[in-house]
């Protein structure tokens, strides 16, 4: 599986460019146009990220995150998830940038290729910011009663968190 991973990026890039050429897309012009959008979205998340990374770095330096992690350690062990990753599971449905801030902490501390780093990556990569999404979509059409939306969406999130540890073990061992 490790070997498969190194092919994903070059092959994806080749396929996308070849596809564009076949379809007579002005590939470079279109690339530049899309890159501009990427640049804009980087700038637009920067202020949020400054605020949240500052707060998470503070939490970490104060020892509060370790305290929370050790408090949640029995739950984590039960789920087969590293204790460091549990705060991520709590914040991901509420805040995407908050999750990014926690991810950077885990990557800096354990490394992105450690077991904890991989479980965190899979967790964050396979879920969305559930509450933000619900608020935006229903808010736009003035729906007040969301019925079973939140339970169903949270069941999906919980499933992802539960299976993330298993999946990393399956593909990488421990």
């Amino acid at each position, binding site marked *: 599986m490790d070997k*498969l991973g*190194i092919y994903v990026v070059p092959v994806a890039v080749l396929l996308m460019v070849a596809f564009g050429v076949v379809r007579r897309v002005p590939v470079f012009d*279109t690339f530049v146009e899309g890159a501009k959008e990427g640049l804009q979205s980087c700038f637009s998340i920067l202020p949020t990220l400054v605020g949240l990374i500052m707060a998470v770095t503070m939490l970490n330096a104060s020892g509060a995150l370790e305290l929370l992690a050790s408090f949640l350690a029995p739950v984590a062990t039960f789920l087969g998830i590293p204790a460091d990753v549990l705060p991520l599971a709590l914040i991901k449905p509420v805040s995407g940038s908050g999750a990014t801030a926690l991810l*950077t902490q885990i990557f800096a501390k354990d490394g*992105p290729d450690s077991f904890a780093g991989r479980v965190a990556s899979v967790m964050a990569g396979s*879920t969305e910011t559930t509450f933000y999404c619900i608020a935006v979509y229903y808010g736009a059409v003035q729906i007040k009663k969301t019925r079973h*939306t939140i339970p169903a969406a949270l069941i999906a999130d919980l499933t992802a968190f539960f299976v993330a540890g298993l999946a990393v073990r399956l593909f990488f061992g421990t």
Partner: protein
Amino acid sequence: MLNKVWAAMIAVSVFCALATGRMQQLSEAVLAGAGNAVQLIFGMMGMMCAWTGLMKIADAGGLTAILSRLLAPVLRRLFPAYPPESPAAKAICMNITANLLGLGNAATPMGLAAMKEMAAQNRGSHVADNSMVMFVVLNTASLQLIPTFMGTLRAQYGSAAPFDILPAVWMVSAIALVAGLLAAKLLEGCSIG
């Protein structure tokens, strides 16, 4: 919501540092944290632009139209209330395709268009109907085929193969998505909220 969480995070860290005698580290963290965020974004900018550029090529080449056609049979089952030619079904298709390609900027407007079409069918009621719930649950699950932001972040922190997690991400996303959709279907009869 985030306003309170953020304030609480700051307050908790200060009290916790006071209790554990880590004021020195905390005061360094305040300054370092803000700087780290800027370093992170600047380090990632190149890769982010490269990915959004490539996605744009795929989109301009008509990949969106191809995926929409492939998705139609699945969507007919999930949204039986909307025939494939209806404006709502078309918007739903475009939204899901944009999500698959990770075109966040395109996915949200398409999703809101789909919600507006469904709300019109729902006669402006304040209660979500089954199709709306199904659609929102689908959007709260991660459908992105190549999580470019995650890969970029991993590369930024020195991962040897930032995208080697992809098979695991796909597996977990698929399982979570099925769980969410099943839950949405099964809970239709219950009267929660």
